[in-house]
């Protein structure tokens, strides 16, 4: 049951983030939306590793079934990649703001 709530929350986060990406005009808002949506997709993967009543996947922690370690490993990678993407995107936003003095997506598109 916990996995289901985790998965549903992940989908909701992704939807929220994508909504913000399309609706907001400020590009920093769009980046925040991308951040939240990435969080959603990452949470989706983590929630998949849940097994009811299981222990963490470390060998010395006692008997019994363990949770699935692979999605956790995938998520470590995905978090780092999303962080790197966000950092680079923010750097580009800074440069763009420096040149064009605006953060409004509509004005940036028109003044080509």
């Amino acid at each position: 049951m916990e996995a289901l709530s985790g998965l549903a929350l992940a989908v909701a986060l992704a939807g929220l983030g994508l909504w913000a990406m399309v609706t907001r005009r400020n590009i920093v808002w769009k980046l925040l939306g991308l951040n939240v949506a990435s969080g959603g997709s990452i949470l989706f993967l983590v929630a998949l590793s849940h097994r009811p009543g299981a222990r963490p996947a470390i060998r010395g922690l006692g008997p019994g079934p363990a949770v699935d370690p692979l999605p956790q490993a995938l998520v470590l990678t995905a978090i780092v990649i999303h962080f790197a993407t966000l950092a680079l995107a923010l750097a580009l936003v800074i440069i763009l703001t420096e040149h064009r003095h605006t953060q409004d997506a509509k004005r940036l598109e028109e003044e080509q």
Partner: protein
Amino acid sequence: MRWALTFGLLGLTGLLGLGIFEIWPRPCFPDPDEIALAWGVENSVAAIVLGQRLWDTILEVLVYVLAMVGVRFFLAGLRWQTKLPPVAETPFFRRSADLLFGPILVFAIYVAASGHIGPGGGFPAGVIVGSGLLLLALAKGTEQLAAELYEPKLEGLEYAAVLATLVLGALVLIFGLRSATAFVAGNILIALEVAIGAWAVLHRFAAARGEV
């Protein structure tokens, strides 16, 4: 446009929900303890990250480092545009930040070095060092902290750590090295890279503050 967006997002989330409901029964996966045993460590997640899927981890480290290269390159020329007020922190805060940074660093080294036995590993350790540097930067001001850390050497150290990670990867993947020492070395190298990259982000972004 909002109607189309609502329709699209509802549709996509509905499809995802349908997919989630049909996910049970879940398949069995190989016993994590055996994976950990096969690689000589205790943490199965570390065994997967730095063992079974080491190739992925190498590429991911490259993603991180090259993003930092990009950030450094793009923000290289930006400086303060207006005169910023001096950092108005109390001496108590500055002194305690100095004192706290030592234990934070030790804790990070512990998390990195014990990543193959317990939870943790290189990535959290790097982030811990980054947070410690953030604390110092808040107390002392980024410019003063940057003056105390020699930046070109740090950058060179980060790239050297990447090269060492590539060599380690070659040893494990091509020559079949399987020992816990490789895991500890990998974790510490990754912690170095993540920490220096986080410092680069912190420094360049703080330096680029100003009139826009």
